[in-house]
């Protein structure tokens, strides 16, 4: 809306122009200072350093990484993937736990309510960093020493060095197994759609949960067995005892476990509060109406209350998911090689490319924030839209 007092308009323009000028001057000054200092330190600005050999090792990696051949870009990718892995899993676990605790806070059972409230207050009011430290110590203390791991036959081992499991290798013909899993997922999606239509038509829907499980687990199992019968068994790397440690196989390290547990339990406390607020936002009459329709409490919650509560829950839940992603950077403290640990720690120290490293790392988090926000906004639009 244009300001009716037009004479003042030129002033607004002038002030804004001045502001831009001042900021530009400031940016120029900072940039020239930085350029001067970098030149003095003999540092070449730009992202060319990403192609240089890294030369250091990383403890945990989702992609093949060897100090001999890896570049700084590889190190960056390793860190990024580790960040995505731990935040993705933590988002899943924290959501489940958070919903359970949030619903428990409105349970009929007063003991359960108090228990859930105590959980929320305890985890919410302690610094995450402290919780991670405690979890990391706790994980190490609870597990047997590396010299004497707990073993499940020769297949799985558990010690302070981690949980070691057999790792199937899904390259080549073995790719049929994950493919079968994908087909199973697609089938489940179709099933859910069909079920929605059936309910809308007033027909009695068939069993979904058991059928879904059968599809998602049965198809890959069939593929596995089929491959074995066809003479192309899925290759499996088994963990074996080495001189110091269990070697080979799939290793879940204690740093990862501690970070995942700490991040999930901490964030679950916040999600629980969001869920509780969401449940409170649904009018009491809705539950009463559901009860009058002879729905059980669980059914009322699942079919009547939660869908309506989701409208209130989703927006703050989005920012919680962003927080989990951002908080995963505390990994640096307990030795999990996430993006900040690898890139802002080791790479920055070795290359001294402060401007590039810091801006690239920040750009990654901003992008993650943006993507999460976009995805959740679309979901939110769907949830909010279904009310019409």
């Amino acid at each position, binding site marked *: 809306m244009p300001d009716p007092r037009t004479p003042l308009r030129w002033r607004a323009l002038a002030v804004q122009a001045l502001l831009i000028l001042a900021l530009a001057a400031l940016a120029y000054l900072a940039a020239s200072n930085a350029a001067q200092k970098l030149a003095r330190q003999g540092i070449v600005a730009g992202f060319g350093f990403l192609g240089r050999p890294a030369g*250091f090792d990383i403890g945990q990696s989702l992609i093949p990484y060897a100090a*001999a051949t890896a570049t700084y870009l590889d190190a960056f990718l390793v860190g990024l993937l580790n960040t995505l892995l731990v935040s993705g899993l933590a988002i899943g676990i924290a959501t489940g736990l958070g919903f359970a605790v949030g619903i428990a806070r409105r349970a009929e059972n007063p003991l359960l309510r108090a228990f859930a409230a105590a959980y929320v207050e305890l985890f919410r009011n302690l610094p995450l960093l402290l919780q991670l430290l405690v979890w990391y*110590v706790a994980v190490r203390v609870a597990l047997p020493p590396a010299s004497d791991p707990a073993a499940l036959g020769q297949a799985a081992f558990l010690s302070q060095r981690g949980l070691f499991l057999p790792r199937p290798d899904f390259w080549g013909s073995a790719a049929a197994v994950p493919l079968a899993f994908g087909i199973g997922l697609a089938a489940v999606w179709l099933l859910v759609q069909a079920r929605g239509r059936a309910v809308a038509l007033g027909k009695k829907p068939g069993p979904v949960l058991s059928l879904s499980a059968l599809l998602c687990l049965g198809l890959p199992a069939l593929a596995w067995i089929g491959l074995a019968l066809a003479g192309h068994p899925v290759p499996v790397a088994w963990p074996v005892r080495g001189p110091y440690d269990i070697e080979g196989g799939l290793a879940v390290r204690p740093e990862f476990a501690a970070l995942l547990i700490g991040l999930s339990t901490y964030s679950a406390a916040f999600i629980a509060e969001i869920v509780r607020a969401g449940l409170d936002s649904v009018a009491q009459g809705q539950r009463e109406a559901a009860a009058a329709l002879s729905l059980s409490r669980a059914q009322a919650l699942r079919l009547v209350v939660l869908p309506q509560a989701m409208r209130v829950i989703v927006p703050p839940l989005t920012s919680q998911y962003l927080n989990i992603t951002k908080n995963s950077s505390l990994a640096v403290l*307990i030795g999990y090689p996430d993006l900040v640990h690898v890139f802002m720690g080791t790479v920055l120290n070795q290359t001294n490319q402060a401007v590039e490293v810091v801006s690239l790392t920040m750009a990654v988090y901003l992008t993650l924030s943006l993507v999460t926000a976009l995805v959740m906004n679309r979901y939110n639009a769907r949830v909010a839209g279904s009310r019409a």
Partner: protein
Amino acid sequence: MRVVRPQAALPPKAALPPKAALLLGLALLVPLPASAEPAPAERTLAQVKARGHLVCGVSPGVAGFSVPDGQGRWTGLDVDFCRALAAAIFDDPQAVRFIPQSSAARFTALQSGEIDVLARNTTWTLSRDTAAMNFPAITFYDGQGFLVRKSLGITAVKGLDRATICLQQGTTTELNLADWFRTRGLTYRVVTFANSEQTLGAYESGRCDAYSTDQSSLYGERLKTAHPDEHVILEEAISKEPFAPGVRQGDDQWRDLVAWTHYAMLDAEEAGIGQANVARMRDDAPSPDVRRILGLEGAYGERLGLTADWVFRIVRHVGNYGDSFARNLGDATPLKIPRGRNALWNQGGLQYGPPIR
């Protein structure tokens, strides 16, 4: 040519006062009036003398090298070096102010004139020497080593093939380790942490088989374990880490003074002049060597801008290199660092003081 801020115009501490700098930062770095007058750098000694005390950048706390006690009194090998400088200049080992420096800020602190000399376990490398500063003399020969449990029964680093090694990130430690194992065709697994408490905690709890960092620090870290006698530091080092004090480039007089302060402490030890016997030795100097060192013959101290009795002052107040080593690092201390590479050249070590002649 780099612009050096005029030293005399600066207070002893050139860092902005916290609040002022905060405001500065909040205003998104408002341009400061840049004082651009290039002052000749070879003024450090004159400034120090005018100021009445030396300002020495040290590490915020490495056992045996520089540690403050509860009263803020500093001790250690690096601290002794600063005190020796102060003794040579002022005949007063207390005429020195210590400013703890983080590893990130140390070079800027030196360049900005915040400190006169950087006596902090800084490794002398070519890039540092050419970029930022000069390294007059090597005061301690260090190398990257390994702390392991005695029960492992390892004597050489080779024995750590396929082991898990805990590291503190952010130094060349990670590169040295990777290079060393790779060139020998050995493998290892690494867990890196942001600070030393976590690194030691992980090692001690059994998460790692070895803890790797500079040997000089490992002795201090071993002391922090619950049972120090159950751990051992491997003798072998996988890197060269010569620790040297740093001075600004372009001030030859100051650079000479810093270098010769160290050499004087070595020469005194070699000539058998120690804190205990220095007064007796001066009154009854046995050889021309000793007479030259103690300033009874020739005018060597004057050439450095000091007085003739400069070495006498150093040894009387601080002692020779061996005295300082024994007091801060040696067997009499809990650290029990062997003299090793840091023994005098004629006793199988690398410490070699050019003659005072």
